[in-house]
């Protein structure tokens, strides 16, 4: 079985003040084993 997430999130070039910190980045790699509750992006 498979689950697909599709979602909006801030990208680079967001608000002037803290663009770097507000840009969404994945924290996973293809092939990673992952579990419920573990971060896939921030």
């Amino acid at each position, binding site marked *: 079985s498979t689950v697909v997430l*599709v*979602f909006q*999130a*801030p990208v680079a070039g967001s608000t002037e003040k803290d663009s770097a910190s507000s840009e969404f980045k994945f924290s996973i790699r293809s092939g990673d084993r992952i579990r*419920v509750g573990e971060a*896939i992006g921030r």
Partner: protein
Amino acid sequence: HRAHRNFFMVSGATMATILMLGILHARRLYEDRKLKVMKEKGIEPEFSPDAKAAFLKLLPLRSISRFWGLFTGVEIPTWLRPIVYRAWARAFHSDLEEAALPLDGYKSLQEFFGRTLKDGSRPIDPDPHCLVSPVDGTVLKFGELRESAAMIDQVKGFSYSATSLLGASPFLLEDGCKDVTDMEYHEARSKDSGKRSWWRISFASPKVRLPKTACPIRGVFYCVIYLKPGDYHRVHSPVDWHVFLRRHFAGHLFPVNERATQTIRNLHIENERVVLEGQWDEGFMSMAIIGATNVGSIKLFIEPELMTNRPKRKLLQTEPPEERRYEPRGMKLKKGDEVAVFNMG
């Protein structure tokens, strides 16, 4: 003499069958090994439809799936349960230590398969700005949808459109970044959304310069996670969000293993699935829960009466999904909440 001759015929046919199965298994092992070597070299397997995929389309997969559900739903004698579940765990690398109940507490294989875990087995990442995995599994693909066609990579050399996965009538956002209340959402949905889809608006929004300090510019991201038969099969919420809409696509029930993703076109769009759509702090959020032959049923805890993997009806490929809006204010889900469970059959 005749009995003797029959004996030789039967044993000959049996030997031929065993030999054929052996050859098929050896070929499968060889191909798996080839695939593994390619991966180790960093060569990504490409999309290559084969005769087996075409043959699968001829099989009554839904009937096979429903029979599998009946078979696994049969109650197992209490003394036999630990033996069966340990054998399953050994075959599919499941962790029995996390199961919430003692093994003999699960009446059937189906009940064991949809088991809950001991409290604390899946701690939620404490970072309030993170998006967490809704399931146990293997990350197949992830990234940002950049083109207006919003294509999701199924495998190298083949991709499918996110709008086909989620549904043909995407949500309409006029200015792409205004926080929308659920009422506005429902109003927007009631309009004829055939005009412009928010996909394009969302991609267009970087070009439409609103006051920078007004709101962040948003992109559209995706992540595909595959659950193996031995994985924990309950689906949790990846963020705090409101679910406004649920769509149920009664599609096919092809297997969704690695081989199938490389050989069956539009696999995630063809298969039976439940899509939840709504909004989180950063904008649109959706989750597609996709069934397969052995796990054909999806039970939603937020809508227990939804039935999936129904008996075979004439499936028109263009058949619109069955939709339900969660009136009046949507379903509020917290990060980590249980949302659904995959059931066998």
